[in-house]
């Protein structure tokens, strides 16, 4: 709660001190001064900053984010529309990332120092180094332009068929997931290697468990804590960090909304979406904390 309040003050201050008046931006270079003043009054920009801050905050507490300066429609509706693109995209990317990272990380850890390990680690190095917008463009060239399996971008709404929507999110999700999967498999590998050197693993081995059984029954669960932390961070990143990918695939998501709002000086939209993302990050961290407790019962007392 305190962090939310603090965040709201910081966001509001930073956005408001950024140069550029929304009204004069909207009316362009031929506008007369009286027209700009009239629009400022219509948008409520003629009020002082403090009262605008409080009306923004009090509205938000009641779930009303206010009205966009440029679109002139309620921000809550705009966010609600966009979240159905961004949230599934982030989840989809997270699933792909996890599905790649777990087997890759576990395999690399068991093959530590051998050819398999080197190969996986080399591949992840590559995955981290490739900028995801470039990778996205390569995906478009191969799968949309050459093979024509997917369209080059755009989003098919959920009403028009779930399969279609998922298909339209596939290339963006892969492009987003690749660097995340690389990071996650490295974390998975090092966490598992560290756990494997613990005493209780040796004990388990001494008790006659096979290597595979030790990994599945003892090591993996204990190695999950750092992995969960990274997954939590990645989810927030995927939700907020899809701005460039949403541009490349022209998806009508939150990232694109923020991007447009910033260039159009639609300050209230910027403030509200960023606030929402802060809320999402805090929520995700909370969920991760709960997940820790499930993964490691010893942590339950501390929570």
């Amino acid at each position, binding site marked *: 709660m305190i962090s939310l309040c603090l965040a709201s003050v910081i966001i509001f201050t930073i956005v408001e001190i950024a*140069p550029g008046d*929304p009204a004069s931006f909207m009316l362009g270079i031929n506008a007369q001064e009286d027209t700009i003043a009239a629009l400022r009054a219509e948008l409520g920009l003629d009020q002082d900053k403090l009262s605008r801050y409080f009306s923004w905050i009090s509205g938000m507490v009641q779930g009303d984010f206010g009205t966009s300066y440029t679109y002139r429609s309620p921000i809550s509706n705009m966010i609600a529309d966009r979240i159905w693109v961004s949230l599934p995209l982030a989840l989809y990317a997270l699933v792909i990332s996890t599905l790649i990272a777990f087997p890759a990380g576990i395999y690399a850890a068991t093959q530590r120092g051998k050819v398999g390990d080197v190969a996986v680690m080399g591949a992840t190095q590559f995955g981290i180094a490739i900028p995801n917008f470039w990778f996205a463009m390569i995906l478009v060239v191969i799968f949309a332009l050459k093979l*024509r*399996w997917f369209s*080059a971008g755009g989003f098919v709404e959920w009403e028009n068929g779930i399969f279609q929507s998922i298909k339209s999110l596939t290339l963006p999700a892969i492009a987003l997931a690749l660097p995340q999967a690389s990071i996650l498999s490295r974390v998975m590998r090092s966490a598992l290697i560290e756990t494997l050197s613990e005493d209780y693993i040796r004990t388990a081995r001494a008790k006659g468990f096979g290597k595979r059984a030790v990994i599945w029954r003892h090591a993996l669960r204990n190695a999950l804590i750092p992995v969960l932390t990274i997954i939590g961070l990645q989810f927030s990143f995927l939700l907020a960090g899809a701005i460039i990918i949403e541009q490349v695939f022209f998806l009508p998501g939150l990232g694109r909304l923020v991007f447009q709002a910033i*260039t159009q000086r639609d300050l209230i939209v910027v403030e509200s979406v960023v606030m929402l993302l802060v809320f999402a990050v805090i929520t995700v961290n909370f969920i991760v904390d709960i997940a820790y407790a499930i993964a490691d019962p010893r942590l339950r007392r501390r929570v």
Partner: protein
Amino acid sequence: MFQPTKLIAAGALAVFASAGIGLSAQSDITVAMQLEPPHLDPTSAAAGAIDSVLYSNVFEGLTRFASDGSVTAGLAESWDISGDGTVYTFKLRSGVKFHDGTSMDANDVKFSLDRARAEDSTNAQKALFSGITDVSVVDNSTVKISLDKPNGSFLFNMAWGDAVIVAPESIDGIKNKPIGTGAFTFQNWVQGDRIELSRNSDYWGDKPALENVTFKFISDPTAAFAAVMAQDVDVFTSFPAPENLPQFEADPRFQVLEGSTEGETILSTNNKMPPLDNVKVRKAIAHAIDRQAIIDGAMFGYGTPIGTHFAPHNPDYVDLTGNSNYDPELSKKLLAEAGFSEGFTTTLKLPPPSYARRGGEIIASQLRAVGIETEISNLEWAQWLEQVFRGKDYGLTIVSHTEPMDIGIYARPDYYFQYDNPEFQSLMTELNGTTEPGKRSSMLQKAQRMISNDYVNGYLFELAYTTVANSKVRGLWKNAPTQATDLTGVSWAD
């Protein structure tokens, strides 16, 4: 060629074809553009994207622009101008209906014009209406507009997207649900993605050939290329990646239309900031610039060199590029005469479009060659408006002035160029009071020469209008006399 790939591709295509998007019937079209309208009211924002979607398609004015930039009859079928040029009597077309079924009559015209010139009006081009003293309804189909003084460009002004006729019944929802009189009705807007229009079966004029129109917004140039190549879209107007145009030209699936806009791209100069207040220095800058190098380097060859602030496709245009030809030696000599043989340093503030960012670097190096150093700073539009346009805190900037027939801005001493020439100002006043075409034409030519001889700004090139389209699409506008994508005459071949 690796044949199995082709086989897989063919198979996959067959699988996905049924599910494909963008495979439109021949009466439907998907038109893509870079910018999405902020809202859908052309009468209360400067955003050209609003007109790009709605002008002539959904909204119409008393008069309208044709594709060659001339002004023709719109909702007014004819008009009379009083002898002294101050009273315009418009005869409206009969049987015109708004999309909500209400009829369009003289009261709607009065409402629209009064709204635009009202005290609390948020019309971005309020100056278009400033000469109007009274709008009166004579009868249902006749409107009389009185002006404070003769205005030779009044019919032209009424053709702007900012002067379209709207109805009091539907004005409240106009920003999200535009109701006009045009050949297409607004259907749906998925914000951030697309706007859908469909044919207006009650349209008063020729019915359009297209049934359904989708405008799609793709801002990233690489994504724009991919979307056209994959044929997800049928038309892309103002294609943002000129470097890819030759590839489309070579591909029989596509056609590339190269036309011109009303966008004079100029090196705007602060005429009050020393040493730029010295005409010799401005002349030196003009001669230091190699226009073709900028067109080739920044615009991949698309654009027409200009020597003054006027569109080359206009019949009144005078080619004055020779007045400021590329001559670095002359430029150095002029600088020495002005007392700057060692050169000087000034600021060059660049807004986001690529003509400015790419062009700015080329100009900076051309100026450096004659001894003028520039401190480049890249600005967002909102910052540009605040610092350069309003604050006049700049030495040089590059911007494209896209308003049609806007040479009148040179008569405003407080405009950001800060060009203050009483002779030019009286010429413009005289021009506004003249309706006789021959006289207007010679005055406009005189005005072009005046600003060219004063080297007010560095005149670079007219922005090209490049459209990439499926080769079967017919009837698209080649030029952009105003920001519009007029689809009323567009059809598919076969």
